């Protein structure tokens, strides 16, 4: 049974003005997230990602459908019972949302107080958490004295205080620079692998998906338009939306503009080779070209590695006599998808 299950969930906000249609932020979404997954939800701003994730910890109530967390149907629960459920689900935010009136220690202690955990246990729990996020020295600092990366670490420690089974991260790295992003993502990965916490990551950046998720859902206009293993969605996106996200981070067949530039700089035939899965050995291509006396130069693209499985597209400029090139390409259709530039 999945840890989190949404079935036909809809969230409509009442219209801003009378007579206008309601805003359907989440539109008939079904989604299952397995225990131990790092599940990314990617989409542009306004796609409904935040609303979707806030349905999981019942900060919002659905207007239709069913939300089940750890086997409990949230729709039937009253507010008091929902507060209990929320204690088992941590959440971190783009703007960190720390309590500025409290120290780092006070921020991490807050969920412990809320959950009614005996005061005697706070000391050990908080210092363990601060060790984990690397903020022991800042324990008694107020949060406005911290850098963005440190603030998010406090956010993570606070979210994990009551040892939740699930961590929701709503654009947790979108306000951070690339290096700090890497650190925070590394920490989230450890949360998943060391503590076995199921992590739901919301983002608009494919890089984030690639670096920590094993599954991904692509959201557009309140709907999940594509869903699958990260490798599959990256190597063979099925929808236009997924293709757009993937194109930004994965080397692809050059588009018309790029092709024109490449052509002006490189003589010979321009050919792209795509590998759909990890099986392809690039050296097979190079050997074959060599054997036929075809000269080649790598002019575009590259190879992606997602958890040890590779895929990608390389574009070569081939020089030599036409017959040899054609022969080589014929043979190579067995190992790669070949796109000959017109």
């Amino acid at each position: 049974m999945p840890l989190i299950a949404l079935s036909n969930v809809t969230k409509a906000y009442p219209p801003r003005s009378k007579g206008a249609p309601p805003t359907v932020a989440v539109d008939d979404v079904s989604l299952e997230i397995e225990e131990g997954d790092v599940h990314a939800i990617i989409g542009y701003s306004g796609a409904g990602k935040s609303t979707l994730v806030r349905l999981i910890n019942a900060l919002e109530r659905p207007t239709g459908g069913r939300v089940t967390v750890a086997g409990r149907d949230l729709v039937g629960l009253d507010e008091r019972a929902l507060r209990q459920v929320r204690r088992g689900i941590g959440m971190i935010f783009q703007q960190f949302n720390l309590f500025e009136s409290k120290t780092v220690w006070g921020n991490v202690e807050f969920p412990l107080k809320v959950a009614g955990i005996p005061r005697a246990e706070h000391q050990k729990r908080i210092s363990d958490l601060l060790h984990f996020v690397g903020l022991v020295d800042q324990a008694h600092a107020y949060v406005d004295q911290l850098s963005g990366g440190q603030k998010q670490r406090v956010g993570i420690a606070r979210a994990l205080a009551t040892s939740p089974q699930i961590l929701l991260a709503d654009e947790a790295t979108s306000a951070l620079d690339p290096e700090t992003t890497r650190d925070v993502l590394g920490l989230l990965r450890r949360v998943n692998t060391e503590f076995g916490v199921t992590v739901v990551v919301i983002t608009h950046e494919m890089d984030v998906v690639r670096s920590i998720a094993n599954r991904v859902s692509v959201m557009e206009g309140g709907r999940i338009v594509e869903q699958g293993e990260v490798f599959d969605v990256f190597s063979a996106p099925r929808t236009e939306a997924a293709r757009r996200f993937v194109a930004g981070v994965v080397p692809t067949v050059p588009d018309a503009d790029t092709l024109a530039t490449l052509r002006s700089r490189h003589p010979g035939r321009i050919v792209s080779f795509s590998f759909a899965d990890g099986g392809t050995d690039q050296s097979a291509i190079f050997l074959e070209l060599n054997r036929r006396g075809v000269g080649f130069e790598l002019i575009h693209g590259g190879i992606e590695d997602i958890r040890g499985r590779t895929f990608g597209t390389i574009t070569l400029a081939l020089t030599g006599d036409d017959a040899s090139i054609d022969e080589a390409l014929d043979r190579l259709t067995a190992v790669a998808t070949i796109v000959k530039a017109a």
Partner: protein
Amino acid sequence: MDRLIELLPKLWLSAWETVYMVGIAMIVGGILGLVLGLALYLTRPGNLLENKAVFTVLNVIVNTFRPIPFIILLAAVQPLARVVIGTGIGNNAAIFGLVVGSFFAISRIVEQNLLTVRPGVIEAARSVGASPLRIIFTVLIPEALGPLILGYTFIFIAVTDMSAVAGLIGGGGLGNFAIQYGYRLFEPAVTWAAVILIIVLVQFVQFIGNSLARTVLRR
């Protein structure tokens, strides 16, 4: 000048009356205003105890009463003072008027300062399963404490200003002193003595308020 020396005991008494009237009014009005201000904030659409009907009613009430000039309000609530505290004249009736007058202003200031707390912070507290009551007392008010202290300081000065017309219904205080013994008897020195005491009082409270706010805001 001789007149002023003669009136010194009365001046001290009046100063004490001002402190007393304003102090009691600030405590009672401050608490009532905090409650109404919280209610306005919490029931506002999108907030913790969102309730459009309640919010609209409270909002209309505050908007109706807040702009009434105090000197008129004081006279208007006099019959009510008779019912509630048993007298329509004197310092206590003036305090009653000050409480009514400050109540609405304080509630608006409290509401506005609570609105400075980022909604995300409240959301974070909700996300760990905190109840509304806990959020109000351990997150919302502490997060807004600096601005709240400055708001109350501002209101203290406004209430001191209002208290100057207490004489209208037989109350005392420095305002009444200045009018009765200074202005009416053509003794500018007496008037100015009251002015200076009011300035000292206001500056003192302003200083305390600013220091407290600075401590809370750690600046």
